[in-house]
Structures are given as structure tokens and as C-alpha cells.
């Protein structure tokens, strides 16, 4: 049998709003349990939902970024079921009318591009967070009512690698949109994988399983690889796949049965009667979408074509949104993309990695880096001096000007001054001059070094180089 997997991914993503989807309680990760709770989040009788406008705008941005058709009417439904993490006994979600439908996300797989269809993007509210102990359970309602978007892909993914690419791209897209923190380990992005195996070329789908509890992309990869193997072996042995929900077990790196899925899941969906359908005018949608930030794909194009950065450098900058934001800010101030990139990807990143800091928390600002680059390109300091200044910028909160002054790092670029120094060096090093004239041209570096030494490092080395040649040629 020639088998291939069919994979679809459901992603739940917590929106980065200030307040909850339907209540005014603040949204925050890691706050004291049950400290961010309004009566609605506990479902106290008589409380009513109010739609968070910012959440709607974020869902619109995400729909647009994923090339989706946008529903111009906002309609919510109730999904009814009893569970301890669901205070109201129902979840407000969008069943029949998701805000976005029929989109796609492009991924690069094996050197070519592939479109993964996205069937729907809908808005809903999160449940409370439970912590289970042996004989009791604690419930934290801080998460109850947090705004979520759920993004459901089509069954277009064919390998663990493609799945990871899809999640990475989706993650970067949502991150650059600024709509979510998309941290899988903190649960602000959660992936459920639907996977089945079919015969290659056949249009008949196999029985699928759903895998939950995936808190990193590498676990997604491991879980899918394991599940493909597990299902393939069963099929090749002539056995049947059971439709079920499985959980990724981190210790054994396998998937284990969580619950056997019952086909008759009965959520009693009906229109949420507390929220009349809200018309989204074309003007409103256009205005929201006009604030659309640039996405990684678009930035990559700008970096590599307009700024002439290498593909590698561009990718490195885009790996981290904060770094790319920092770069964009710098370029706005001083149009030296290559120099900026070299500084950032070199000494700056090395410093941040060593300290384990995000760039937002170090002393360096785009303005300071731009000042430094200005000093460098105007030859006020040498590149060697620039390194010293940068180091100081990262360590202290001093300005570029202050550091240059304190360290006496002014570069001498006055021709007469350097020529005087060159003549002193040439007369002090007659043997070297002789060697040079005798053909040992590589001794030039030594002579430049002597000029630098004499100037206590302040001479412009390029100028010194030129003037040494001029003076030596006079001796010839």
C-alpha cells in the first residue's frame, strides 16, 4: 500500500486585547488567580455580554491577512454543554457565520510554494483554567471570557514538516499583525491536529484522530510523525483506526487515547439572543484594514529588494518581530540598512543572547544606533571605535556623543595632521620603508599601525593609508 497522511489543523489563538471578549475584566497571563474577574465571567445571573470592538478589529485584520472573505455582519451563537470550566454552561462563539471564510496561507515546502486552504476564522470566548489535583480541582476564572479566534485549515497538509511550516507561518503572521502573543508554551496559541491516512491518489479519506495538548512546534512534529507511523502500521496490518481524541505524551513522545469521540456531540447551537447582529459597514472595515501592519512576506520583499539585504540576513531579522521592528525604526532615521543589519545581527544580538534580554529591555534604542551609524559614516569615529561605543551603549544609558567624549574617541581626519604623523613614522622606520620600496608591499599595514599607535588610535586609518603611499612615492 502506498499511503499518505491527510492533515488539517485547528488553531486557537488568544487575542491581545486589553479586556475580555464580552466583559470589561482585563486580560493578562500570569496574574493572581481569580483577580481578573467581572460578574459576567462567573456567569452571575443577570449579567449580559457586550462585544469587544478591538477584538472584532483584530479578527478582521487576521481574516484579511489570511486572504479570507469577510462577513459584513457580526453574528454570534451559543454552544451549549456542561463542563466545570464553562461558567455559563454555554460558550458564545460563531457557528453559522464565522467572520472570515475561504482563505489560504502559503507555505514553502521542498523549495516550492503551496497554498493551504483556511476554511474559517471565527471569534469566541475562552473557558476558565482548571488545575486538577488528586481529589479536588482549582478553577481560575481569569481566563474565562478571554477573546479567542479559531482558525481551521482545510485538509491540505501532507506531512509533519508541512504542518510545522503552516503553524510557523500562521504564528509569524498573527505576531506581525500584533493581534496575539502566539506563545504556544503559555497557551496563547493552541493547536489541535486532525490526521488520517489514505491511499495515495485516492479521494476516499480514512478515519481521523484528533491530537491535543501540543505546546510547541517540535511537539507538533513529533506527534504527527508518531501518529502517521501508528496509523500506517495499523492499516498495513489490516486493522481499523478508531475515531478518537488523542493526547501527545511528552515523556514517551507518543500519542495516547484521551477519549473516544462520540459522533453524536450535541452542542444545541442557536443564535445568541443577547447580541443582535451587528452590521459592519464597508467604510468601517476599510478603515480597520487600512491600519494593517506589514507581514513577514512583505517585509522580506522590502528587505531583499529595496534594501539589498541577503536572503539570509532578511530571514534573521524577521525571525523576531521585535528585532525587525527595531531595524525598521533605524532605517526610518538613517538610510543605512546594511550597516544597521550588521550591527544588529552581530554585536547587538550576541549581547542580547548572552544576557537573555529582549531588545526592548536593553539600553540601545533605534535613535542611539542611528546616531552611532551617523558618526561612523561621517568618519567622526572609526569602525573599531564604533564597536567600543556600541558596547557602551548596550551597557549604559549614555548617549553616543557622551561616550565619544568620555572615551576621547574622536577620529583625526585632518590631512595635514595625519601627514605630519606619517612623516614622523616614515623617518622613524627607514628599514620598513626600504623593504616596501624593495617590493615588500605588505609592510604597509605595519606602517599604518604605527600611525594609529602614534595617534593613540584616533587617526582615520584609510586616510593614513593613502597618505603613507603618497609620502613613500615621493621618496622613490
Amino acid at each position, binding site marked *: 500500500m502506498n499511503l499518505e497522511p491527510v492533515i488539517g489543523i485547528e488553531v486557537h489563538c488568544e487575542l491581545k486585547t486589553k479586556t475580555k471578549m464580552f466583559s470589561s475584566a482585563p486580560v493578562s497571563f500570569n496574574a493572581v488567580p481569580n483577580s481578573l474577574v467581572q460578574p459576567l465571567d462567573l456567569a452571575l445571573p443577570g449579567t449580559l455580554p457586550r462585544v469587544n470592538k478591538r477584538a472584532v478589529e483584530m479578527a478582521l485584520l487576521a481574516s484579511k491577512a489570511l486572504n479570507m472573505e469577510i462577513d459584513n455582519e457580526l453574528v454570534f451563537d451559543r454552544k451549549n454543554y456542561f463542563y466545570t470550566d464553562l461558567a*455559563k454552561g454555554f460558550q458564545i462563539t460563531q457557528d453559522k457565520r464565522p467572520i472570515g471564510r475561504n482563505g489560504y496561507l502559503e507555505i514553502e515546502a521542498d523549495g516550492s510554494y503551496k497554498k493551504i486552504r483556511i476554511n474559517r476564522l471565527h471569534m469566541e470566548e475562552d473557558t476558565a483554567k482548571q488545575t486538577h489535583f488528586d481529589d479536588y480541582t482549582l478553577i481560575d476564572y481569569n481566563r474565562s471570557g478571554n477573546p479567542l479566534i479559531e482558525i481551521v485549515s482545510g485538509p491540505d497538509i501532507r506531512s509533519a514538516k508541512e504542518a510545522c511550516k503552516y503553524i510557523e507561518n500562521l504564528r509569524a503572521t498573527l505576531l506581525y499583525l500584533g493581534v496575539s502573543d502566539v506563545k504556544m508554551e503559555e497557551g496563547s496559541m493552541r493547536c489541535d491536529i486532525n490526521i488520517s491516512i489514505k491511499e495515495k491518489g485516492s479521494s476516499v479519506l480514512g478515519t481521523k484522530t484528533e491530537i491535543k495538548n501540543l505546546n510547541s512546534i517540535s511537539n507538533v512534529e513529533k506527534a504527527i510523525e508518531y501518529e502517521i507511523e501508528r496509523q500506517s502500521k495499523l492499516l498495513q496490518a489490516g486493522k481499523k483506526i478508531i475515531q478518537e481524541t488523542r493526547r501527545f505524551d511528552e515523556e514517551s513522545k507518543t500519542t495516547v487515547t484521551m477519549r473516544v469521540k462520540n459522533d453524536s456531540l450535541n452542542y444545541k447551537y442557536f443564535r445568541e439572543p443577547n447580541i443582535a447582529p451587528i452590521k459592519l459597514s464597508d467604510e468601517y472595515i476599510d478603515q480597520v484594514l487600512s491600519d494593517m501592519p506589514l507581514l513577514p512576506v512583505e517585509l522580506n520583499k522590502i528587505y531583499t529588494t529595496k534594501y539589498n539585504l541577503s536572503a539570509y540576513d532578511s530571514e534573521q531579522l524577521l525571525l523576531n518581530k521585535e528585532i525587525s521592528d527595531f531595524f525598521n525604526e533605524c532605517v526610518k532615521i538613517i538610510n543605512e540598512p546594511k550597516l544597521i543589519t550588521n550591527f544588529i545581527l552581530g554585536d547587538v544580538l550576541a549581547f542580547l543572547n548572552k544576557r537573555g534580554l529582549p531588545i526592548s529591555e536593553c539600553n540601545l534604542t533605534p535613535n542611539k544606533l542611528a546616531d552611532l551609524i551617523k558618526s561612523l559614516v561621517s568618519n567622526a569615529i572609526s569602525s573599531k571605535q564604533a564597536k567600543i561605543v556600541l558596547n557602551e551603549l548596550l551597557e549604559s544609558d549614555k548617549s553616543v556623543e557622551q561616550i565619544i567624549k568620555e572615551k576621547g574617541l574622536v577620529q583625526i581626519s585632518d590631512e595635514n595632521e595625519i601627514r605630519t604623523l606619517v612623516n614622523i613614522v616614515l623617518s622613524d622606520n627607514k628599514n620598513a620603508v626600504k623593504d616596501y620600496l624593495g617590493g615588500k608591499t605588505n609592510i604597509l599595514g605595519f606602517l599604518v599601525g604605527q600611525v594609529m599607535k602614534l595617534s593613540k588610535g584616533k587617526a582615520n586609518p584609510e586616510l593614513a593609508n593613502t597618505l603613507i603611499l603618497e609620502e613613500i612615492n615621493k621618496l622613490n
Partner: protein
Amino acid sequence: MSYLNKSLIDIIEALKNKQVSAKELVEESLLLANKYSKYNPFVTILGDTKVNSEAPLYGVPYALKDNFSTKDILTTGSSNILKDYIPVFDATVVEKLKESGATLIGKTVLDELAMGGTGVSGHTGRVYNPYDPSLNTISGGSSAGSAVAVALGIVPFAIGSDTGDSVRKPAAHCGIVGIKPTYGRISRYGLFPFATSIDHVAYFTRTVRDSAFLLSLLEGSDNKDATASTREGHNYLKDLNTDVKGKKIAVISEIVDCISEPSILSSLDNAISIYKEGGATVERVSVDLNLLRAILPVYMIISCSEATSNNAGLDGINFTSREEGNDFEEVMINSRSKGLGKSVKNRLVLGAYCLDNENIENVFIKAQKVRSLITETINNIFKDYDAILLPASADAAPTFDTLSDRMSDECIIGENHLAIANLGGFPSLTLPYGFKGNLPLGVNLTCKAFDEQTLFNLSAYLESKLPYENMIAKEEEK
């Protein structure tokens, strides 16, 4: 001298002229509340609360149905599952009445979670009709205690809620004025939800003028309720006009024709004559009998379905009374089994059935379509008429031990047509218009959405021609 037998507007006047103090009024109200305890209108009787002397209702005592959230005051919904629930916030109407200076003297009994029309299923026991001191007659419900407190003169007004007819029916049975304004006129924030799309904040007074006066205080948009109307408020009392000349009133033939009780029919004829004398036209209109027969099932399907969902949070987990169990499912099942009464359980099961994946298209969705049809039919009547006039019930309040023939049109249509106003969101008012023996009878007027002014005008005219304004049920002195 007693002042609580006066209308709300007269009480406010007496307070203004310092004929009576706020303290005296509240004391008298509390005295009466205790005196009439045999009719069982209250879940909780309160002491005095702080009042704002600049406010329009300063010193006026009122009662509140126990399904409105009151901060720091027990609010039970007349259900065992909420018997110890003390809310942390005030309903918007409660907030408005607080700001208006009114004094809450008690929380009143309702049919459990507002599901019922008799006043018998509250967890603190039956409520009794004040016009029957032998305690054999129902008050009507679900806003039973509020109706009784107003009818007995304990308070000049009381707040209730109306999902099918829960204010307008007990108003008819207790001889007082009950109004359910247009859907969205008064914020529902803080009202325990029964059936969201047809729940209305509603209230009782003993005069139409009081009813008009109060709506101006209670109405208005609310950023806590997305369904609250943003229309500007009115001074309904100031604009009250009892000249009915040229007004057109419709009477639905098929509803009247299924009623056989002579006292009801003669009271209706009398009301029709009064309108005609005033220069109004009163005409019979016809509505498809099958559509009228569909009102009750449509109401039951929609209300029970929404109730199933709305009450799913009463699960023994975070704020309701809890019964222990071995796992969470057992805790929920035990808490709900013990905490909810039979009638509520029946409705919740019916609602779950209507919403079940297998049935939703054929039951719930179909009911929504018929609801639209009913609303459209009534709106068509409003194209030609200013109001619809109908008996609020097919008979006077029944005794606890009589059950009417529930499958007859007299019951299915005659006792349930008031739900039309809930399904369509129309403003609708009941006022007394006669007696059957010692029991009062009520007539109902319904107008098109947001036309409360016409509703008050037509009601005030009828009231002025009948001897039932500010009627109080008096205990016979022994």
C-alpha cells in the same frame, strides 16, 4: 392617616407638602408587609435604606421581584438552587430606582425562576390572591408577590418581569395596572434571564398615570445591555392625552369568540361602548385561528429552549447551592436535581429536546419562523389600528384546585394570547375593567413597538370612565 392607599403621584405630592415623611411611609409600608404576611408576597422584607432627598421618588417604598440582582441583598429567583445567593451588583432598574430615591422594602415571591403563571411554585410557598381572604385563589404569576404587594397597598408600585404575561396576567387577577413596555425600552441588565429574546422588565401600579410617570424614570439605553434601545425617553405623564376621538381600536374576533365567561364578555362590551362614546372606532378584525393556536407552542418552544441555555450556569459549581458527588457530573446532576423544582425541570428538558441536533430544524427553527409570522400579522393590524383591545384572561383567577381544560381553545388561546406582545416585543398594558363576584377582571391593550404614549392615552381614558382607579384589596374588618 394612611398615605399608602394613595397613588404614587399623590404620595409624591404629600411628601413634597410634608404631609407625610419618608420615615413614616416606610414604617407604614413595613407594617403592612408584616400585617399581610398570610398572602405570602415576600421572600425578604428589608429595613430602610439610604435615600436621596433631592430625587423624584424620595421616600417612596417599592417592592422588587426576587429575580432582580440586588447588591448585598439575598436574591433567590424563588428557587432552592439560589436560596443563599447574595449578588455583588445591582440590576440597572434597581440602580435607577436607588438614584430616584425610592426605598426597597422587600423582594417578592415569583414562580420558580419566573417559569409559571400561577404563583404557586416559589421555594417559600404559594402566593395568595388578596381578593380571596379564604386563601383559595391564585394571584397569577410569575410576578405574584409584586402584584399582591401593590394590590394590598403595601407599596404604590412594584417591579416584575414579563416573559409570556407574567406581569399583565397577575395584574388582571389582582385588580391593578401592569405594563410590559416595548422590548428594549428598559434595560434587562440584572434581571435573571428566563428567555432572553422575550424577557421584559415590567411593573405594577394602581393607576395608569403612575404607570406613565414611572416609565420615564425606568427607560433608557444602557451600555450594559446590548439590546436596550437607544431611543430618547419621553415625559409620558406630561404628554398624557385622554381624548380618544378618531382613534382606531381592533378586537381580534377569534380570541374573543373562544371565551364563554359572561362577566368577561360583558366587561369587554362595556369597555368597547366607553371607547365608542369617546369617539373612537372599535372594530373586529380576523386572524387565522391556526396562527392563534400556535402562540402557546411557539412561546413554549422559544422560552424553554432559551431557558435551558440561560439556566445552564446554575450547576452547583461556582455560586449556586451545591450537592456533593464523586465527580463533576454527579455534583451538577445532584445540585440541579435537588435545587430545581419539577415545573422548571420539565421546561428545561423540553427546551433541551427542542434544541437537540435532531429536532432543532423541525422545532426551534420552525417556531422562530412562526414567531415572525405572528409578529408580521399583528404589525399588519397596527397599520390600520392604534391598538388591540382584548380580555387579559378568559376568566377570573382560578382556585388552586381547579384546572381548566388545557386543550380547549378557551385555554390555549384565551389564556395565552398575551404572549403575542412578548413574541413581537409590543408594549402592552392590563388594567381592571370589571368583577366576577369578588374577583377583579383585567382588560389588555397592546400597541405597536415604541408607541407607549398611545398605550397610556387609551388606557388612561378607559380608567377615567371606570370606577377601578387606585383600587386596593381591603381585608374585611372582623
